[in-house]
């Protein structure tokens, strides 16, 4: 059967699945993970993440940082074109960034650049046709990293014709290797290779490097239903199915001529612990819970063996992942029981809230419950609907919350999920001044060594306070048909289809 699928399909579009429709084609404004995945093929920023998660140049040919770290001068590569054929000049860069910085745009990441969190861009100015200057209010070691952030639309440089006269979004006129042909709501998004695209010289590397659209026609099929997604893959109706949920790995094992491509991902799954709760205010009980959990077993079951346990909030894939020596997080039922006895825990129920929308969050909750039962912890599972759970999270209204954080390039970003001033944002579960200080420092310095040091300290502190019980960092798993070449998965998990192509039977 495989043979004829290839024949029948040799002249069709390159098809990949999308678990849900994209929110919009407006990068970094109205978005979700799927939106980002698609948009990363269409738009490009000055800088972009490399394979290892550090920012590298993309549209920019070169960059100079002033000694005081307040001025960034980017020089654009010459001869770049927008999808409408217009040349890429500093003017569009300035226009794009001013647009992002305008609150009316509603850019997701505005608060990282307008001073809300301390960091601000003072001005964006064109120096000449190809040179653009960014001036900052203070040294920002993470400035480039945040520019490249995928959830911010990677600071995409757009042609002003992307919006209409009133400034409403029309369609992305950008510089990516693919350009948008048709978006049929709830159905498919069809891209075609942009002939005017000029790849970089150096080899493909993360979101930058040489991005070649080898397949002329790339179609994202929106298939919400898992079963039909698999069926599609099985019958060779799609070439790649990214973001395989752990639960489906087993079935894919049965499908012929399909292989799994996976890599550890940034991001972290765990349990948020509300220490404002009378019962959980007792550190011993919090620790007891942490000690009751066998992370490796849990990770193994939840991810069908594609991930390992990780007590830290920083992913294994991150350069800042704590060294094994201090990692900790080994289960110790005896000690756990002892702690409970000490604390005089009377078996009163502790509610663990979770949701069904993200199977991993749901399954880990089931397992945590089962494991805690062994030490006599009585955990009740409360299944909320995702939207309701988000409300609870923001309001900090929960005892235990099963949660997963999406990929963030920098460890500091990961910590700031849980660490912060509870008075200002109740969603923060960790309000330890010492920890806050450490985080602040990590944001101030650009020195790698120093930052490693700071993050390790933070990790140890977290193990002590137990505001968050890290369980594992997920793996990015993709099902790829065997006749497809060049697909690589990476820590951000957002699938990339440039440099990917189908090998015709003959070529085999």
């Amino acid at each position, binding site marked *: 059967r495989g043979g004829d699928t290839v024949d029948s399909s040799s002249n069709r579009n390159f098809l990949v699945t999308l678990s849900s429709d994209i*929110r919009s084609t407006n990068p970094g404004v109205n978005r979700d993970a799927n939106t980002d995945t698609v948009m990363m093929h269409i738009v490009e920023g000055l800088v972009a993440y490399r394979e290892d998660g550090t920012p590298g140049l993309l549209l920019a040919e070169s960059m100079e940082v002033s000694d005081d770290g307040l001025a960034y001068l980017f020089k654009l590569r010459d001869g770049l074109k927008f999808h409408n054929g217009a040349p890429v000049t500093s003017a569009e860069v300035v226009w794009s960034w001013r647009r992002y910085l305008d609150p009316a745009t509603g850019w*997701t990441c505005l608060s990282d650049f307008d001073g809300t969190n301390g960091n601000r861009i003072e001005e964006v100015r064109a120096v000449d046709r190809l040179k653009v200057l960014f001036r900052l209010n203070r040294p920002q070691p993470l400035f480039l990293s945040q520019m490249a952030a995928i*959830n911010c639309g990677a600071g995409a440089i757009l042609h002003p014709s992307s919006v209409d006269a009133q400034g409403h979004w029309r369609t992305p006129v950008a510089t990516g290797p693919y350009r948008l042909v048709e978006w049929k*709501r*709830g159905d498919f998004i069809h891209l075609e290779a942009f002939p005017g695209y000029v790849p970089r010289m150096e080899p493909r590397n993360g979101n930058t490097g040489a991005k070649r659209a080898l397949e002329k026609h790339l179609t994202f099929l929106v298939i919400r*239903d898992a079963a*039909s997604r698999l069926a599609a893959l099985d019958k060779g109706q799609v070439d790649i199915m990214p973001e395989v949920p752990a639960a489906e790995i087993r079935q894919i094992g049965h499908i012929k001529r399909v292989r799994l491509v996976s890599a550890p991902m940034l991001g972290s799954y765990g349990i948020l612990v509300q220490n404002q709760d009378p019962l959980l205010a007792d550190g011993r009980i919090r620790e007891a819970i942490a000690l009751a959990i066998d992370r490796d077993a849990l990770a193994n079951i939840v991810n069908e063996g594609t991930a390992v346990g990780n007590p830290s909030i920083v992913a294994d894939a991150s350069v800042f992942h704590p060294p094994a020596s201090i990692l900790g997080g080994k289960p110790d039922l005896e000690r756990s029981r002892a702690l409970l006895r000490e604390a005089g825990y009377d078996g009163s129920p502790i509610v663990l809230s979770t949701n069904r929308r993200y199977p991993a969050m749901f399954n880990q909750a089931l397992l945590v419950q089962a494991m805690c039962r062994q030490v006599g912890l009585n955990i009740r599972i409360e299944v909320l609907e995702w*939207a309701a759970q988000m409300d609870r999270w923001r309001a900090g209204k929960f005892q235990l919350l099963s949660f997963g954080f999406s990929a963030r390039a920098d460890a500091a970003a990961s910590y700031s999920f849980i660490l912060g001033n509870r008075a200002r944002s109740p969603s923060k579960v960790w309000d330890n001044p010492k920890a806050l200080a450490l985080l602040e420092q990590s944001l101030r310095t650009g020195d790698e060594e120093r930052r490693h040091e700071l993050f390790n300290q933070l990790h140890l502190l977290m193990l002590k306070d137990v505001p968050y019980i890290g369980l594992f960092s997920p793996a990015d798993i993709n099902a790829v048909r065997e006749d497809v070449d060049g697909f690589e998965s990476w820590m951000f998990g957002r699938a990339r289809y440039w440099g990917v192509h189908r090998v015709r039977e003959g070529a085999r």
Partner: protein
Amino acid sequence: MMKYAASRMLLALPTILISLFMIFFMIRLIPGDPAQIILGDVDDAGALQRIRAELGLDKPLIVQFLLWLRAISGGDFGRSIALDSPVGDLLFSSFSVTALLVIPAVAIAGLLSVPAGMFSAWRQNTHTDAAVVTAATAFLSIPSFWLGLIVMLVFGVKLDLLPVVGYVSPFDDFGEGIRYLIMPVMTLALVETGVFVRLVRSSTIEVKGLEYITHARAKGLPELLVARRHAFPNVMGPTWTMMGLALGGLLGGAVVIETVFSLPGLGRLMVEAVFARDYPVIQGCMVVIVMSYVFMNLVFELTAPIICPAVRYS
């Protein structure tokens, strides 16, 4: 006739208004903030406020309701929060999908069940009758989502006869579109057949006891003619309105089948909108659902006398 239709529409108006009112406030009682869902796992009060303002969710409820009513009376269903596109378009495309699923299904069910039902009623208390009734009862006892699952795995995956992936609109590619619709339509049709057959049978049994049927025989008409000419229209009376109800209900209520076969239909659109707290879409869906229900009933009520002249006078 037209006057009657008009007055019936007038009568339906309060119904529609009440239901819209109920749904409008109900969905806003549901915990969960669309703005936060858009933001995802980012906790940023400022951004939240901005988005809520954009969505006009900061106005008092009653104002929102009245604004919305004015808008839809002008045909403007607003923009989807989650999908950032005109709700009108979403409704149109998804409704067309559902219609393509439901209308053929009900039609097929009707075509199957009327002969079957009348036949078994004519053979009342024989083995044929028992067999038909049992089969019908069995059909309506199988949950559609299970039936759908089985059908899909047998015909779609194991036998590899039909595509299982989502949906291709017959308007784009007719042949292909049909192939995509076969399984869901069949599943739905089977379930509905179960319902209809029993209905047709019971109303046939009623009719065939009446004097004019005996009289038709006394005229010397052959059984087939008696059944076709004399029983059929009177049986169709109740059946027809029933089908109208079924159609009206299914047009909004085919969620499960749509989920199983992942069809981008109205039900799916609404369920996902509910999850995403996409108020404008939910409201839009409700308008369509209520309208199609009311409208279908009206259409079938008005056409009933054509199918079964008896109802005109009763």
